[in-house]
């Protein structure tokens, strides 16, 4: 079967292993993820911080193009893109004047009824039911599932009831044979878009997350967001300078964990692209 797909910019560059692994596991499950024709950047933090109209018009263009492509469901693996697309859909459904203005600028009308799925919703609906037959190598390790902010908040719009203690990723990891540990940093912020402009804040916020997971015995932190991944993995020097100690716990995408459990090679899962080496035996 085919599903609409919005990779977003990170998945074409700094988090390409997220793209590689979600495509690889989808293929194993017989699902083809089809990119929106000529998609553009969602505007990310920059747009909603500096320019409200762009923060809506940029995601809206993608929603219109997805409709033109005939998509009914759209898979958005990047938690930040997912958040911007859902917030735009929500805002345009509540504000008809803005919707009309944006449609005029786009030169196209928007039905605004596409179903947007984040990676966990996609996995739950399309991959989880097939895992019993697809798991070849159980991932028998203690892991810390880290959700961050954008998959669960704002909970009123994301319709996430367990926004302080989400379980979707934990359930998938248990299914893969892992033990998802109980820990208090599941939905704490990693420092998000400050990776470049305020790296020391990322060092502190991500440092607390990494320290908690490592001290509770987790052998890996499992994530579902490119920003969280690059802050916890690539910014490890800033983290270690904040913690004043070395921490070697690796950070993997949930899609990479599934790929490994499906028996795909570490290379197919894009494991070699991380800064903190991943030595999980499967």
């Amino acid at each position, binding site marked *: 079967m085919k599903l609409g797909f919005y990779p977003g910019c990170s998945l074409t560059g*700094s988090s390409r292993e997220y793209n590689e692994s979600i495509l690889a596991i989808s293929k194993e499950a017989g699902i083809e993820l089809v990119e929106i024709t000529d998609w553009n950047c969602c505007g990310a933090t920059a747009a909603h911080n500096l320019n409200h109209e762009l923060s809506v*018009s940029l995601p809206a*263009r993608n929603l219109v193009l997805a409709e033109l492509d005939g998509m009914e469901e759209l898979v958005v693996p990047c938690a930040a893109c997912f958040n911007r697309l859902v917030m735009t859909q929500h805002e345009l459904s509540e504000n008809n004047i803005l919707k009309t203005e944006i449609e005029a600028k786009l030169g196209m009308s928007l039905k605004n009824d596409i179903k947007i799925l984040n990676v966990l919703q996609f996995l739950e609906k399309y991959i989880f039911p097939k895992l019993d037959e697809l798991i070849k190598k159980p991932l028998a390790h203690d892991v810390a599932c880290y959700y961050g902010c954008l998959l669960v908040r704002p909970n009123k719009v994301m319709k996430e009831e367990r926004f302080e203690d989400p379980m979707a990723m934990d359930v998938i990891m248990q299914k893969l044979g892992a033990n998802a540990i109980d820990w208090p940093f599941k939905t704490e*912020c990693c420092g998000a878009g400050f990776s470049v402009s305020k790296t020391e804040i990322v060092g502190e916020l991500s440092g607390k997350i990494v320290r908690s997971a490592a001290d509770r015995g987790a052998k890996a932190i499992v994530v579902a967001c490119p920003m969280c991944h690059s802050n916890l993995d690539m910014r490890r020097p800033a983290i270690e300078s904040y913690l004043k100690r070395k921490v070697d716990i690796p950070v993997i995408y949930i899609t990479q964990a599934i790929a490994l459990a499906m028996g795909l090679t570490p290379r197919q899962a894009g494991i070699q692209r991380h800064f903190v080496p991943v030595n999980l035996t499967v």
Partner: protein
Amino acid sequence: MTDVNVIECYQCGKCTAGCPVADRMDLRPSVIMRMLQTGDAAAEDEILRSLSIWLCLTCETCYSRCPMEIDIPKVMDYLRQRSLAEGKVHSDARDIVAFHKSFLNSIESNGRLHEVGLVIDYKLHSGNLLQDMTTAPGMFSRGKLHIMPERIKDRKGLSRLFKGQTKKPKS
């Protein structure tokens, strides 16, 4: 301003207690809510000149925990845009604003983010020329950076969205 129900804040302080950057803020979220309630022009000016509004990460923890469901992150977005428009950006927030502007420049040029272009543009506008010199080679060797940008085809449609929306950053 926005349609947010700031007036309903009764100063329970949950937003400030849960804010991951509150200890770095000059005005904490609950204080900003109270200052906005007064409607005082001097208080508003102080908020627009504060570092706090730029330190807010939009993690949405405050909004999720607020007993009155006040959309504080939406207020922060509004305040940031006014601070920028009125030339009141706090000096310690210049790097943050420079980064956001470089980000939007990259989208305006290409339709998609070009990470190499973003960082070069940011370095030129922030003056932080030597930052991340040790990170970039590691990103290249892991195949995470592209020299050339990916560009979308419908450039005209894209420029219609940007028309009248952005000013070039001051050099």
